[in-house]
């Protein structure tokens, strides 16, 4: 009797296990399509784990600082030589940059164009955790909603774009990097005579080199082109460096090609980031009417069809 009962129990457990395994398998697809999420549990888990991550990250930083300082001392002579070379090169570059600056100013004056300044409000944060998952690329930073952060805010460094906040918790937030295959960033080629638009997406096959996709085969994209955010989509402000095109390849038999991007940010050594909490573009200055010949003045505020001069507005 007891043997039959044990067998019955064992079968029941096996069925429950099978049910759970199938349910979890289905959950993966529902969550990937955005039909299932666990925001509260996820936030609670992050809240519990993040203090430990802070401490461990601090310990790791200190150890890294000590080892890198020792390494710096060992390699100081070689570094000195390299820096001297670099200074010489930078002097030449500085001269060229000054020339370019002067030319730029002349051109701006020529076209009467004043570029509106884009200003950002930023909150700086430290990276306290990195996901070691093979398939997605996320980091955890030590600031959250209590510091004014919200979901979808862009994350940058002084070198360029890092990603966006995918989940802001009270004291820490998860950041989806631009290397994540689920991330897509509207971008364009910065070169003045190109300005080709494309979408930068993470590549699971090459985790540190995302791809700029949806470029037509005859579009003007070259190796070495700087890729910046386009500002379309409303998440990332325009003009943030994403990286440089290191390789341009055709997409199989289709009419499109893609560029492999070498990111501006070195994600392997990412320690500090800044979150853009607000970006405001200065409004364009009001148009000033040109000076008019005395005796022929018209009132600029007057409607165009007033006074019987019908074609004046065009």
């Amino acid at each position: 009797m007891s043997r039959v009962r044990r067998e019955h129990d064992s079968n029941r457990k096996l069925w429950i296990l099978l049910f759970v395994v199938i349910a979890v398998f289905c959950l993966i697809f529902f969550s990937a399509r955005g039909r299932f999420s666990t925001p509260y549990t996820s936030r609670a888990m992050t809240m519990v784990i993040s203090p430990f991550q802070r401490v461990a990250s601090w310990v790791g930083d200190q150890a890294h600082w000590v080892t890198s300082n020792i390494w710096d001392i060992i390699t100081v002579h070689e570094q000195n030589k390299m820096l001297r070379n670099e200074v010489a090169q930078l002097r030449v570059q500085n001269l060229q940059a000054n020339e370019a600056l002067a030319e730029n100013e002349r051109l701006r004056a020529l076209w009467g164009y004043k570029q509106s300044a884009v200003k950002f409000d930023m909150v700086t944060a430290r990276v306290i955790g990195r996901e070691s998952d093979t398939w997605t690329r996320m980091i955890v930073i030590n600031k959250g909603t209590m510091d004014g952060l919200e979901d979808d805010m862009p994350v940058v460094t002084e070198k360029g774009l890092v990603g966006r906040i995918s989940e802001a918790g009270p004291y820490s937030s998860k950041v989806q990097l631009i290397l994540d295959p689920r991330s897509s960033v509207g971008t364009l080629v910065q070169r003045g005579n190109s300005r080709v638009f494309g979408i930068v997406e993470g590549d699971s096959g090459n985790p540190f080199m995302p791809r700029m996709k949806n470029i037509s085969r005859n579009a003007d994209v070259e190796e070495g082109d700087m890729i910046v955010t386009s500002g379309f989509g409303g998440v990332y402000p325009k003009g943030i460096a994403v990286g440089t095109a290191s390789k341009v390849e055709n997409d199989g038999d289709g009419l499109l090609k893609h560029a492999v991007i070498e990111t501006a940010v070195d994600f392997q050594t990412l320690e500090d980031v800044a979150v853009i909490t607000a970006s405001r573009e200065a409004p364009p200055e009001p148009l000033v009417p040109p000076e008019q010949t005395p005796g022929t003045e018209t009132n600029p505020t007057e409607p165009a069809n007033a006074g019987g001069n019908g074609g004046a507005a065009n």
Partner: protein
Amino acid sequence: MNRVFIFWFVIAALLFVVQTALMPFLAWDGITADLLLLMTLSYSFFRGAQMGTLMGFFLGAMQDLATGTFFGINIFPKMVLGYLCGSFANNLFRERGFLPILTTAAGTAAEYFIQLVIVLLLGYKFNVFINIERTLLPMMCWNLLLAYPVFGLIHWAVKKTRDT
């Protein structure tokens, strides 16, 4: 019971923190060891299929919830591997020295290929061979390197919880 649960939660949290906050400093091309997989394998190795599956579920859920990856992508393989490893371990002499290495090698490869199939089914396309070279091989090296320390830690923890 609560004490035992907290004890295991602290060990899991400790390994997760080391994996996400300390290991990245030593990462090889961004890839580090999956310490929670090692914990699942070693726990099921010592406690059998049923407890191994349960541990796989909790550790996978912890990883998925704390990192924001596809929910379930760690739960699923860890549950399956917890069950399989526990089932096989019942028929083996657990004292054999090479078994942790063998279990880790097979477990790492199995988790990778289960996740690979899921990611491909989700519609992401990439060169599988390059991915194996860049992610599976470094992860395998890391996991093999840390297999004995983690198996030792879990062996100690299993003994300690049995004694209390």
